[in-house]
């Protein structure tokens, strides 16, 4: 094992470049996964922080951010009459594209009744909207575009005064912005309607049974918030999973090639020494172990460096671009280390073949 270490560390520059190469490839894998985890958390932030345990949507709709739901008239009263329902919070929501400093920014506009709830759960500045011409903006989005409270903001031809800045409502894909429900009804020309009802059950009410009772109302279905959040995550995963898997696969191949290149060069350079070892009786198994151990050392050092790079870069990205949330889970870190080991084993294949084919006699002929 000492031989493997000495072989590898003989040229420190080469070792350093290779460790950086492996680290960058693994860092990319870790960052991509962290990015997706962060995005999932961001897209479900409204459901995680709004009141209620069940969501009533238009029949056939079981997610919040994918499809546009419009509930039939009278559903609020019908839902309130159902046994086990303590409170219903109607909201009217719609994706909108904001034009901010010549940039297009999608946002999820939520119209809510301040007396019932369903609005911003934490304000960084200002207050909640009191009139139909007031809006609460996401804090990060506002900061990126130099918007402050009291600024006038134009949306779909209507002017709104920013009266508050909300916290925890930011996302790269969909920042949340809030107006009164009556304001969005006017904006979308759909008076006295709601997209969703957030249902607060009575204490001790069985969610499954309550959901079944709500389902009996014509034109709607009730979904638990957990299921709705999972459906939203699944929708966004569908968008990102194929490109993400492609990137991860390419990164894995790159990492493997870097380890392979280093170990191959180190082995070819020491070919003569391996021949001598063979000539004095070292078995192929011993030499394989030396080669594989070299690959493992390079991959492990690269993996540890990759994890450190990822942690550092994730922090840096979130400071420079606060709309991105990168969540690095312990399980992802563990998987990255395992990936490093798999890379090492795959990369050791070629150099091991070189050693296996080596005829001990060659050292005496040279």
């Amino acid at each position, binding site marked *: 094992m000492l031989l493997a270490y000495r072989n590898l560390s003989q040229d420190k*520059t080469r070792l350093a470049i290779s460790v950086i190469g492996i680290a960058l490839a693994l*860092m990319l894998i870790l960052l991509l996964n962290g990015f997706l985890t962060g995005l999932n958390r961001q897209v479900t932030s409204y459901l995680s922080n709004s009141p209620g345990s069940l969501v009533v949507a238009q029949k056939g709709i079981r997610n919040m951010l994918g499809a546009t739901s419009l509930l039939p008239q009278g559903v609020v009263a019908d839902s309130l009459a159902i046994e086990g329902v303590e409170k219903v919070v109607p909201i009217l929501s719609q994706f909108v594209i904001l034009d901010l400093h010549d940039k297009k920014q999608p946002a999820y506009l939520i119209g809510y009744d301040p007396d019932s709830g369903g609005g911003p759960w934490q304000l960084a500045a200002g207050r909640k909207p009191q009139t139909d011409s007031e809006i609460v903006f996401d804090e990060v989005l506002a900061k990126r575009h130099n918007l402050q409270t009291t600024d006038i903001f134009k949306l779909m*031809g209507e002017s709104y005064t920013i009266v508050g800045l909300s916290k925890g409502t930011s996302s790269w894909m969909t920042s949340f912005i809030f107006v009164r429900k009556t304001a969005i009804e006017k904006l979308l020309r*759909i008076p006295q309607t709601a997209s969703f009802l957030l249902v607060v059950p009575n204490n001790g009410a069985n969610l499954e049974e309550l959901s079944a009772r709500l389902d009996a109302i014509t034109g709607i279905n009730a979904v638990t918030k957990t299921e709705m959040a999972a459906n939203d995550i699944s929708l966004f995963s569908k*968008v990102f999973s194929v490109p993400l898997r*492609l990137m991860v696969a*390419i990164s894995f*191949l790159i990492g493997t090639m870097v380890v392979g290149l280093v170990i191959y060069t180190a082995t070819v350079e020491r070919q003569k020494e391996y021949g001598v070892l063979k000539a004095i009786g070292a078995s192929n198994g011993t030499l394989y172990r030396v080669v594989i151990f070299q690959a493992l050392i390079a991959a492990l050092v690269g993996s540890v460096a990759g994890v450190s790079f990822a942690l550092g870069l994730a922090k840096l990205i979130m400071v420079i671009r606060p709309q991105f949330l990168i969540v690095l889970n312990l399980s992802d870190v563990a998987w990255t280390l395992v990936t490093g080991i798999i890379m090492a084993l795959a990369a050791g294949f070629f150099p091991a073949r070189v050693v296996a084919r080596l005829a001990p006699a060659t050292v005496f002929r040279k």
Partner: protein
Amino acid sequence: MIMLSVHNLFQNKIRLSISIGGVALALSLIFSLNAIFAGVEERITAYINNSGADIFIAQSGVQNMHMASSSMPETVEDEVKTIPGVEFVTPINYVPNMVVVGDERNLAYIIGLPPDAKLGGPWKIFKGSRHPKSGEAIIDRFVAEKTGISIGDEVEIFGRQFVVAGLSEETASLVNSFAFISRSDFSTVRGGANTINFLLVKARPEENPEKLAKTIESQLGNVTARTTAAFSSLEQKVVKDMSTDVINLMNLIGFLIGLAVTALTIYTATLSRRSEYGVMKALGARNSYLYSTVITQALISVAIGFVVGAIFTWLVSIIIQGLGLNLTMNITALSLIKVGSLALLIGCISAVLPIRQISKLDPAMIFRGR
């Protein structure tokens, strides 16, 4: 010099293959991401570009279709019809919803069309009708095949059953598809609201669409009118603006990985030829000549890596299409130029370390047998 560089590089073919593979993969990281977003841009504008309209009219302040909402009173249709230069108009309703078949839920943009709509309908029909009647729907062929649906079967849209009357093509992306129903059904299931979401306009052949769009905006006052080309480019801008930061970050990481791999290759190739470089120095070769040799080596390896990376990405895009994933990857000329420039930069920077090695090389060492 070029011969020497080629000889040095090709002397060990396994090492060369591994290093070219590494560079190619690093560059294909950049290629793939750019191609994916270019593909999304193309797909996102498919409906607009194939609508047949010259002008799109939306609610004032609305300049997009996807992830946007537009709502106008039905009277807008009659007002636009009276404007000189307008040949005909088609009002459409539009909202993202679901096409549900059993437990299978497919996100879809639902378009409500008037009877015999001249604009905005499905542009390529695989089978069946092009014009949905009341109670009928035209869904995407891919969605139908995935869910085992054919003409005459029923699907659920807005929580109501519709009979599939036609199957359209080129109307699906990785995430969603388009489905077409009649405007009357759309109004019924959406609460009977008498609104239109977008108005599609065909200009008279002699009319300039750009000028006509401006006239419509100024005469109606409370709408946004854009030519189809402008509307389409604004739609692409949403994808561009959303993806710029992600693409830049991935490009940087891809660039650094490519740099590390190329630097490693050129460094090891130079190191293994160290004594030969010493001999050349001893024979009077100038440092600048040796530097050029190393830079040429680096450039040759990134050039091969660039070509292999582009071919690899192209093959991936074909495989993905073959797998029926509905993910379009477009390798654009702009992305070739961008990645090519990055590759050139990688080649030059990666030669720095070997150049330092050569500059420190003492010709006398070869006589000392080192």
